[in-house]
């Protein structure tokens, strides 16, 4: 090119520009051209263009391509997929598919937007046939689901090919083979034959994995069972869709008979578990010899067993609860029925011997045991009578036992025959109110002493148990002591108390009998006789009390008279010392405190006996009271005084006041005489002859004691009264602190012995002081030695007084 000149090149440029451009059509130009040709009708109506718009095709070509694509896809393809694959609008595809289906005469189908060829359906049928041969049963629904086809198409496809490509039976959407049916029947037959217990048909099929077999046409388990039963291949029964094998029924019957033979009974409740649904009727049919009860059927051997137990109990004089002999779990009514059939009981009843008593439904008590218990109950009644009477004898201030309100059980335990509870308590707690026994139940105590102030009604009427029943209280206050005693004792023999007592006697009876009623029924049976025994015991005790009381009163009277004389005797002795006022007062005070107090006790005891006489109480108790009268505290006497009649009460209060505070024996004596007169006693004045006789007796007694006495102080206390009698011819009670005064008084009359007596007294004082010191001194030892040496002389001196008494000198006598 460089060889060209510039001009050539410019000319070449001009020529190049002058050349005509090559004309070239773009795709768009072509599309526009084709569209224009179509508009002009030059290309016909069968020309289609692709979705890209760059390709044009005829409908024949599209149909051919559609069929080829379906074949390539295995005979089944959706139109949407085909449209995508061919790049043609789906509308054109649908039009051509519809036309192709029409022309195919059944070789091509359009189903729900899919093109399916006949060869595809042939393949489906062959697959179904394979499954059928393998499984024996195919559900069309499963096939439809597997191939994503509707059931109608599958059904029509299968139906069309039955007998050709598919060998089986189609019924109710289920395709199965005859071999399959035979297999199912064989399995069901085997399962039924092997069953050992009832099984529901549905359960059986489920366990065999044949849930769908019930839906098989021509398959019915009931008809199959009937068929097998008829052929004798199975034994059993088929009811209510449940197969019960014969072996099971036989085993149940065997178990039922085994239980009956072994236990002797079968309960109706258990019968159901043995397959006997009808219970009682079934058992009665199965065991005709059995005894039908409320709860079950019992073998007659059970009655023999009960008879043996009853015989043993009766021979041992014991009792037995038949429910322990009868089979367990039977009702009480059943045991009663069995007892009613017992030969042991019926024999006794027929013979009228009544060797046993039927109580509390299921219990039998031998007559011997019953008699023993009746004896104990009677003894208890007697004790109750005694304790009640003793309680009534107690003064109103005395306490009732168990004032704190013990439990009924504990109170009853105290009511044992050996220790009557009330008697025991009266000893233990004498200061409490005996009436509070009944009050104690409501937790309060009330002194009944207030009643003593009324005077008109001194009887210690016990309070009723219930405070609410005031009318009852009033009625009781009007009762006689005997009636009160009976009521109180009857309380101790209440049904509950007696029941408790029976359980103490026979602890094994607790919870025995129907509803644990044995103890209660036994108590009810024992009670009437026990109450009758109580009446008898009370009558006996009150009758025996009158005679004893008379003897007691006579004894008291005798003692009181004796004490009255002694008081006067010693009083005269005191009067002999009236010159020394201090000594006189001390002597009188001692006399009043000792002899006066004893006399007062005797007189009050006499009054008490009179009071009890009026109340009708037993003498035995009164004796006991009298024996302990000397030690009774003043408080008891005060309570007794409050219960006495008014005149006696006043006299007794004055006498007690005098004894406790007076230092004048004559004044005290007058009060005591008034008290004795209130009791109807006439106190006799002590004449001189009688006094001498008394002094003599007193002197003798003192001398006897002195002779045997080796203790110097005691010997001195005996010797001084003896010497006083020798000098003054009067008896005197000398307290220890008055010994010196009396000795000094006697020294004037004892001449040469006076010094000895005073020295002896000093030695005794020194000896006692020495003994009182913490350490024994040498002087105390010396005193004891001297006293022992001089003791014989003292005895001789005192003994010599006897002659003096025999010939008394004339002395002034104040009396």
């Amino acid at each position, binding site marked *: 090119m460089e060889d060209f000149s510039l001009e050539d*090149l410019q000319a070449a440029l001009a020529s*190049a520009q002058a050349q005509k451009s*090559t004309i070239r059509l773009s795709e768009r130009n072509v599309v526009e051209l084709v569209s224009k040709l179509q508009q002009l009708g030059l290309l016909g109506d069968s020309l289609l263009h692709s979705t890209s718009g760059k390709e044009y095709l005829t409908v024949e070509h599209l149909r051919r391509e559609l069929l080829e694509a379906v074949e390539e896809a295995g005979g089944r393809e959706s139109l949407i997929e085909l449209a995508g694959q061919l790049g043609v609008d789906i509308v054109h595809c649908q039009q051509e598919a519809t036309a192709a289906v029409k022309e195919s005469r059944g070789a091509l189908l359009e189903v729900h937007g899919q093109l399916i060829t006949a060869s595809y359906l042939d393949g489906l049928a062959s697959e179904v046939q394979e499954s059928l041969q393998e499984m024996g049963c195919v559900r069309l629904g499963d096939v439809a689901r597997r191939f994503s086809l509707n059931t109608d198409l599958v059904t029509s496809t299968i139906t069309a090919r039955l007998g050709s490509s598919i060998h089986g039976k189609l019924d109710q959407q289920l395709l199965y083979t005859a071999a399959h049916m035979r297999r199912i029947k064989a399995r069901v037959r085997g399962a039924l034959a092997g069953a050992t217990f009832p099984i529901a048909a549905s359960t059986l099929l489920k366990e065999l994995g044949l849930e769908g077999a019930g839906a098989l046409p021509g398959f019915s388990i009931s008809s199959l069972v009937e068929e097998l039963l008829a052929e004798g291949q199975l034994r059993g029964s088929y009811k209510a869709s449940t197969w019960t094998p014969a072996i099971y029924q036989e085993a149940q019957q065997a178990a039922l008979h085994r239980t009956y033979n072994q236990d002797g009974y079968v309960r109706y409740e258990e019968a159901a578990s043995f397959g006997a649904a009808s219970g009682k009727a079934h058992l009665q049919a199965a065991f005709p010899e059995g005894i039908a009860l409320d709860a079950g059927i019992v073998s007659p051997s059970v009655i023999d067993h009960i008879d043996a137990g009853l015989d043993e109990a009766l021979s041992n004089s014991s009792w037995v609860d038949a429910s322990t002999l009868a089979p367990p779990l039977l009702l009480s009514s059943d045991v009663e029925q069995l007892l009613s059939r017992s030969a042991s009981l019926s024999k006794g009843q027929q013979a009228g011997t009544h060797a046993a008593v039927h109580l509390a439904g299921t219990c039998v008590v031998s007559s011997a045991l019953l008699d023993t218990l009746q004896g104990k109950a009677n003894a208890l009644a007697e004790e109750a009578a005694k304790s009640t009477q003793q309680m009534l004898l107690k003064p109103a201030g005395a306490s009732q036992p168990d004032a704190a309100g013990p439990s009924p059980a504990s109170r009853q335990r105290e009511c044992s025959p050996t220790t009557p509870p009330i008697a025991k308590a009266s000893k233990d707690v004498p200061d409490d109110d005996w009436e509070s026994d009944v009050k104690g139940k409501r937790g309060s105590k009330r002194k009944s002493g207030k009643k003593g102030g009324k005077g008109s009604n001194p009887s210690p009427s016990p309070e009723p148990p219930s405070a609410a029943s005031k009318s009852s209280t009033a009625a009781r206050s009007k009762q006689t002591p005997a009636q009160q005693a009976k009521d109180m004792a009857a309380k101790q023999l209440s049904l509950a108390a007696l029941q408790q007592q029976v359980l103490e006697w026979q602890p094994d009876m607790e919870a025995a009998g129907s509803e644990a009623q044995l103890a209660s029924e036994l108590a009810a049976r024992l009670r009437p006789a026990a109450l009758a025994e109580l009446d008898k015991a009370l009558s006996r005790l009150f009758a025996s009390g009158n005679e004893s009381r008379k003897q007691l009163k006579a004894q008291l009277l005798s003692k009181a008279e004796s004490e009255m004389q002694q008081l006067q005797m010693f009083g005269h002795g005191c009067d002999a010392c009236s010159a020394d006022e201090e000594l006189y007062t001390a002597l009188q005070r001692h006399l009043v405190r000792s002899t006066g107090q004893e006399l007062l006790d005797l007189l009050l005891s006499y009054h008490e006996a009179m009071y009890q006489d009026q109340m009708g109480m037993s003498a035995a108790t009164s004796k006991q009271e009298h024996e302990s009268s000397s030690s009774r505290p003043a408080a008891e006497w005060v309570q007794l005084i409050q219960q006495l009649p008014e005149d006696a009460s006043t006299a007794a209060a004055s006498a007690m006041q005098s004894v406790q505070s007076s230092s004048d024996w004559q004044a005290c004596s007058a009060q005591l005489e008034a008290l004795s007169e209130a009791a109807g006693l006439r106190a006799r004045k002590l004449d001189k002859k009688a006094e001498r006789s008394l002094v003599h007796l007193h002197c003798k007694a003192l001398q006897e004691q002195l002779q045997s006495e080796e203790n110097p102080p005691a010997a001195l206390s005996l010797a001084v009264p003896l010497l006083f009698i020798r000098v003054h011819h009067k008896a005197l009670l000398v307290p220890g602190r008055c010994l010196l005064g009396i000795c000094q008084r006697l020294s004037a009359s004892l001449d040469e012995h006076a010094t000895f007596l005073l020295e002896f007294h000093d030695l005794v004082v020194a000896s006692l002081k020495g003994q009182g010191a913490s350490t024994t001194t040498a002087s105390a030892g010396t005193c004891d030695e001297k006293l022992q040496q001089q003791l014989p002389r003292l005895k001789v001196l005192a003994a010599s007084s006897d002659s003096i008494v025999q010939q008394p000198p004339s002395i002034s006598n104040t009396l």
Partner: protein
Amino acid sequence: MAESWDSGTKEAVKQIPLLTSIAGPRDKQEWQEKRLKQELQSLIKYIQLNKQTDSDWFTITSNKDGTHWSGKCWGGKICLTVHFKPLWAKNSPHFGIAHALCLGLAPWLAAEIPYMIGEGAIKVKS
């Protein structure tokens, strides 16, 4: 700048012969003997290419010395001073008038003409 060309433009510019002579109109001899000749040769080649692809879009002529050029394109004109200076500086001396038309005026026309028609600034002669 290079990214703004379409693939057609790039293909076209590759087919335009590159220039080798470094000379301008003031270099009388070198210009007339070499550079002007190379310019004309590349223009001829470019015009031929356009004719072949049915995309002829301009005419151009020069005076005898090649110092004054005139022509017509189908629409608009191009500024080849500041805007294309980096390109020319980078490809000197290889790019000539033909390259300037191909890379400068042609894309500009392709972008601006439809816009101007849309605005009504120019109208198609029918």
